[in-house]
């Protein structure tokens, strides 16, 4: 009777965090233990899935045994398993860090009620957010993706407002409005898709030819997702929302949440509606991406607060993802490779950076960059993690960020669009300005500097950031492996026969 087939591993990344979220809301005592178990189980199941995937290629799973088009299918191919892996690793780091963060803050006798409230609601929100991110990466149904997008944005907004500061709540309200507008635009696109093609499954859709209404659908969905991904000039909501949140929340929002909508966007443009995409369209996105790189970096250089600097750096780094659009259009063979590297490296590095900033904030009591001299003397690991993550953001070898930028530049030369390569280099130069500006502060110890009284903290407050930063750094050394995964797996959409049925 009992039959847990090998295929069932695919559903575990969804079930585990979801169940953990429910239990965390019920009882706060076991919240961290449950979350950690879910995080580890999630990592394990994704490992098994990766193994299966490398053996047999793309996997399809029909929820409830209803075949498409009637039912909802979950699919795993190269890009989606890489995204799942990224979420699993980064999420585990954030989970550990959050434990250290809240324990440190609750240990302060002042305002204990506020900190306990934050921890109490953090866990259910974070676990559900994680489950819905996994759900988005697994899903192959555009309406189901709408539901997961909403299930991402509600916890994300609640998390952004969790700190209780007025600034964070104003930012969260704006974030909610933008996010809702994006969802509605996406939903209207789904309506047009259903009206035109009568199916909701991505693979079935990728076999259809684009028509006028199909283009309208693509445009609507793209605008919605661009709003959620905060592409310049639609980025206005991102820096205040990310910078004013609690440190673990900033890490979640910046490294994972924006990647969800980006993943869906890239999938729609290059796998599902690839036949409808034209050169002017990708060039527009590329130009906006270039604008984001330069504008975000310039704003980051101007910032006086560490967390705002890191948030603007996210705006800038998201720009690289959009430069990949014109390059991937002309250089179709490797289109997922560049993007996947960028996303992986940025997720690890940016979460490490936000965690490090959070630790610095906790210890120094503020995050004014000019007054941070001497931090090195009492939280050396954190400062080291920040610097390593900075190496990634700047794109120095051997980091994952370097590989991503190298792929971008070589692709721009291959497709004779050298100007994108120049933008990438300018971006790196500007990034090194804002990274060095901070790191150089850390290492100066002014004369007569006294190490302030430091409260003891658990290693969880420092080490997850360092490990994540090191993973991002070492990503460059194992570069062929992720590319191999992509080669195995991106065939799901190319298997589609002209009639629109897989296999």
């Amino acid at each position, binding site marked *: 009777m009992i039959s847990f087939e090998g295929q069932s591993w695919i559903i575990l990344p969804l079930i585990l965090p979801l169940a953990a979220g429910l239990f965390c809301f019920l009882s706060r005592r076991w919240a961290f233990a449950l979350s950690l178990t879910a995080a580890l189980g999630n990592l394990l199941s994704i490992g098994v899935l990766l193994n299966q995937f490398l053996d047999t290629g793309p996997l399809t799973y029909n929820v409830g045994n209803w075949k498409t088009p009637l039912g909802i299918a979950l699919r795993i191919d190269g890009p989606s398993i890489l995204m799942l892996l990224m979420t699993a690793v980064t999420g585990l780091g954030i989970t550990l860090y959050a434990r250290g963060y809240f324990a440190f803050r609750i240990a302060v006798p002042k305002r204990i009620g506020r900190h306990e409230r934050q921890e109490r609601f953090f866990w259910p929100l974070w676990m559900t957010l994680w489950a819905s991110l996994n759900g988005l990466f697994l899903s192959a149904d555009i309406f189901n993706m709408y539901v997961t997008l909403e299930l991402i944005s509600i916890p994300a*907004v609640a998390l952004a407002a969790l700190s209780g500061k*007025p600034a964070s709540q104003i930012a*969260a*309200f704006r974030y909610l409005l933008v996010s809702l507008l994006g969802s509605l635009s996406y*939903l*209207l696109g789904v309506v047009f898709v259903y009206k035109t093609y009568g199916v909701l499954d991505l693979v079935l859709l990728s076999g259809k030819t684009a028509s006028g209404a199909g283009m309208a659908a693509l445009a609507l969905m793209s605008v919605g997702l661009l709003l959620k991904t905060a592409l310049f000039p639609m980025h206005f909501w991102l820096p205040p929302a990310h910078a004013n949140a609690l440190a673990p929340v900033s890490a979640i929002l910046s490294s994972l949440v924006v990647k969800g909508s980006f993943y869906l966007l890239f999938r729609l443009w290059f796998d599902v509606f690839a036949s409808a995409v034209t050169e002017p369209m990708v060039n527009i996105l590329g130009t906006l991406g270039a604008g984001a790189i330069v504008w975000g970096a310039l704003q980051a250089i101007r910032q006086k607060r560490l967390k705002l600097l890191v948030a603007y750096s996210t705006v800038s780094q998201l720009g690289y993802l959009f430069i990949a659009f014109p390059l991937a259009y002309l250089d179709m063979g490797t289109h997922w490779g560049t993007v996947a590297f960028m996303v992986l490296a940025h997720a690890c590095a940016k979460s490490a950076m936000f965690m490090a900033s959070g630790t610095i904030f906790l210890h120094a009591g503020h995050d004014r960059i000019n007054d941070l001299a001497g931090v090195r003397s009492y939280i050396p690991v954190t400062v080291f993690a920040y610097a390593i993550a900075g190496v990634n953001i700047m794109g120095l070898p051997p980091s994952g960020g370097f590989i991503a930028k190298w792929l971008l530049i070589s692709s721009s030369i291959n497709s004779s669009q050298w100007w994108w390569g120049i933008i990438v280099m300018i971006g790196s130069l500007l990034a090194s300005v804002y990274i060095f500006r901070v790191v150089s502060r850390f290492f100066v110890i002014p004369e007569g500097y006294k190490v302030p009284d430091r409260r003891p903290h658990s290693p969880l407050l420092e080490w997850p950031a360092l490990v994540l930063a090191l993973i991002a750094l070492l990503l460059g050394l194992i570069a062929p492996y992720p590319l191999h995964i992509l080669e195995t797996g991106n065939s799901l959409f190319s298997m589609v026969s002209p009639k629109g049925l897989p296999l």
Partner: protein
Amino acid sequence: MITNLLYSFGGLMLFSMGLFALIACSHPLRKILAINVMATGVFLILIATAYRQIGTGEIDPVPQAMVLTGIVVSVSVTALALILACRVQETSNHSLIQRKKDDFTRTGT
């Protein structure tokens, strides 16, 4: 066929009206109202595409299920947005509303 088109266009008009009000109005409550109107417009377009006259066959139930999902999602986000807006007022001196009227009503568009 004409019924489908009529309701589709009605839905489209609602969507656009909501979009305009969302951008143009400054009061948070009205922004949330505008979002609700937009959502209703989207649902109307979806249901209108599925409509068939009595006697010409069964109605496709999938859009109806999608709209039910959408309505429930929209009431959840509306509630969260409303409480968040109230909360912003309560915690900050900075006031989201200064009066009942707002920009949009005074522009006379």
